[in-house]
């Protein structure tokens, strides 16, 4: 049970008291719309380091794209740009297929990155509750509890994240990304650190999301069962697109080639 001061309690009541404009109760965001990503001649430089060179890529709604490439190829930069965390130096990154201009597109994007995006000094439940509120979910507390049960952490709901193992942290990080039923899921090596239980849960969750029409872009450089679900593979090298299964003659064959090549390198 968390301790709350009078001040923080009052602040929360003020926060909860205002009328909400929020999501419909559908499974995966507004019904019928799927989100795609369009990158046009994108270049990203950090000082003199060029992370992405002249990348043009169109990802259609509902695709499951496996993003492959060695370390430093630019996968993380690309994902962070799609997540609206950074803007390209030149070129354009746009999310296509969103419902209306007034709705904030970030509402439909979920991101799992290298960091966990969790507050160590807050409990698992508090962390999810905070993000549920920030994403405008109507029954924030209930949704947070549901998410905890789904990822198997409800027994540790009240424990501080500081006390969690790596596997538990990663599970919670993924749960945080899925909390608001995103239509676009961006995953940067999401399986890293997951224990066997976590991997199983993650696999079934991905299958479910795939079936619901969520657009998924996942970067991974280890052999991963989840890659079997991918409909497309794009590999990056030194900031450029090396191969794209959708442009090659036989996408299935290329996919298999890339996967086994990845498996060999891993």
């Amino acid at each position, binding site marked *: 049970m968390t301790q709350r001061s009078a001040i923080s309690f009052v602040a929360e009541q003020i926060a909860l008291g205002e009328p909400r404009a929020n999501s419909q109760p559908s499974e995966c965001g507004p019904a019928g719309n799927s989100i795609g990503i369009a990158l046009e001649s994108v270049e990203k430089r950090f000082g*003199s380091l060029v992370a992405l060179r002249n990348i043009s890529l169109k990802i259609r709604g509902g695709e499951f794209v496996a993003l492959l490439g060695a370390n430093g190829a630019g996968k993380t930069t690309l994902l962070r740009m799609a997540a609206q965390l950074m803007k390209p130096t030149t070129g354009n990154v746009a999310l296509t297929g969103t419902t209306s201009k007034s709705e904030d597109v970030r509402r439909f994007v979920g991101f799992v990155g290298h960091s966990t995006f969790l507050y160590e000094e807050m409990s698992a439940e508090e962390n999810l509750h905070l993000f549920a509120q920030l994403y405008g979910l109507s029954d924030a507390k209930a949704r947070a509890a549901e998410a905890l049960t789904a990822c198997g952490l409800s027994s540790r709901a009240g424990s501080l994240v500081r006390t969690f193992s790596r596997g538990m942290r990663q599970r919670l990080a993924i749960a945080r990304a899925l909390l608001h039923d995103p239509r676009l899921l961006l995953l940067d090596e999401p399986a890293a650190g997951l224990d066997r239980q976590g991997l199983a849960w993650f696999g079934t969750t991905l299958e479910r999301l795939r079936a619901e029409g969520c657009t998924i872009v996942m970067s991974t450089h280890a052999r991963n069962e989840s890659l079997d679900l991918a409909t497309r593979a794009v590999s990056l090298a*030194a900031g450029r697109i090396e191969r794209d299964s959708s442009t090659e003659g036989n996408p299935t064959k290329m996919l298999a080639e890339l996967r086994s090549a990845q498996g060999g390198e891993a």
Partner: protein
Amino acid sequence: MKGRIALVLIAAALMVFAGYAALYVAPDEKTMHAIQRIFYFHVPSAICSFVAFFVVFIANFAYLGTRQPKWDWLGVAGAEVGVVCSTIVLITGPIWAHPVWGIWWTWDARLTSTFVMWLLYTAYLLLRGFLDDPQRKAMFSAVFGIFAFLDVPLVYFSNRLWRTQHPQPVILGGSNSGLDPVMGKVLLISFVAVLCITAVLITDRYRLERLRSEFDELRFRAESREAERASKILHAAREARVE
């Protein structure tokens, strides 16, 4: 190139002329005598420091609007020159004050404001020193620069208000009292001279920053071309192995 040489020569000539005028042409001040002549460089330096800091403000604004590095270069050039001008004001002030009034320093509105302004833009330069990433350096120093410029009038007015409540001896009484017409002309000449020098310094410093940036760019391009060549060879080797 030619333009720059011409500007430097003009500035140098003006400075020599202004120096001569300040020392020989200007009439002797009746109470302070020779030491008063420092006024001909003290006041223009103060005005030029404001000009330089205004240039910094414009550059900061332009950088936030356009994100073009050239505005960042102009910002740092203006800030450095402005700090130099302020330093001159802060040094010539006490040099002037001591023989005349027997005190080195007084916390009157103008001197205090100059000191705080000096601190603000020194902080601007130090901030740049402590930020490593070039984009962040440009962005954050632009934000801080705007805050600093907004603060300058507040500093001046708060000091003015304060000093009307608790008066201190005012060293630079000169600009309010009537000025002898010859003195006025000499002041104008030295102001133009100092302004020219300020412009030359800012342009040169801007050029230096631009060259530094181009150098980094070229070096990086050379290095990355090497790296690409190496990776192509490696890739070809891998292909050969696969087949």
